[in-house]
């Protein structure tokens, strides 16, 4: 499970929680790290914060979709994680290729359900 989050506290906590739920977390603080992890490790799911610096979450989703075309075995479910709940942001995320959109705070039970889906 790939976590892409620039906030250290949030990234660390999500990693520990994903481990506690029995999955193997991969952590990335930016889009470049996320793309490298995705190509190498081919995660089942990527939890991506939309407010990433430089290359934002929507742009990263587009890049990951492109990477899925030319990387054999890479077929990752993309989940947007954000504090923004307005309709425009949700639409942008959908257009960028996210499969799901989750508004922070995500409750641990909801995260576990998401990972198991």
């Amino acid at each position, binding site marked *: 499970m790939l976590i892409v989050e620039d906030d250290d506290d949030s990234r660390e906590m999500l990693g520990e929680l994903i481990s506690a739920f029995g999955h193997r977390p991969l952590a990335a603080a930016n889009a470049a790290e996320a793309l490298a992890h995705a190509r190498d490790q081919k995660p089942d799911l990527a939890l991506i914060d939309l407010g990433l610096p430089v290359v934002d979450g929507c742009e990263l989703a587009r890049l990951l979709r492109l990477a899925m075309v030319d990387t054999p075995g890479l077929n990752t479910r993309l989940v947007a994680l954000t*504090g923004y709940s307005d309709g425009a942001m949700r639409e942008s995320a959908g257009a960028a290729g996210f499969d799901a959109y989750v508004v922070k705070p995500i409750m641990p039970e909801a995260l576990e359900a998401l990972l198991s889906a």
Partner: protein
Amino acid sequence: MNTMTVQAPDPLPELPTLLARLDRLRNADRRAASARMVSVIGHLIGTPLNVIAGRAALMRTGSPTPEAVDENSRRIEEQVERLSQRIRRLIDYFGLVEPTAEQRPLADVLGDCLALYRPVADEAGVTLRVNVSEVGALRVDAALVPLALTTLLSLAIRTAGRGNTVTLTGIERGPKTVLLELSAPGLAPPPGRLDRLEPPEAGVRYDAGALETLWLCLGLAKRSGGSFDVVAEASGTGATIRLECGHG
């Protein structure tokens, strides 16, 4: 380059129609600004809340060691402090607007407001009654009070319904405060204390624009050194809007 000429309709709509349109725009603008602000606040507090929820879950998942419990507790405290700082900054930011120093007699302020809204009331079939003779000479904030009054008059008239009466009464409340009471016979009282009110549950709609209007006036009243409340009429229909503001 393509150009387009836009002409004002000829003849121009009557003043009440223009004011009603302006009112709709003001409400739509407030609603859009509120939605944007709420979204930003959600973004600012979402990450710390996420960490708190996650750390709390880690403490009750499996059999955490005492060290893990200590560490998670410490992280939760850090995030609570981070959250508090962000909320304090937001409050400081929105508190930057100060009332103007300029003051005008209440009677003049009211005269201007009534000149605008009496035609609107006439067209809506609503009678406007004003009883402020005792407090007309008191000087009030020349910017905040007209803004609050026009906003409230508009709301009271819009919700009153044809054949009803909207009454504005002014009462001096001590050496520094004047109370303006506005009867709004068609306004449902808000579903709770305004300063404690949370947005309605999804699917439950309070009068469109009314909640934003009342919140705006609560803020204006506080900035002018007063208070604001809406109380249900004893008869069970309608409400009385009570705006207290400071006077010089």
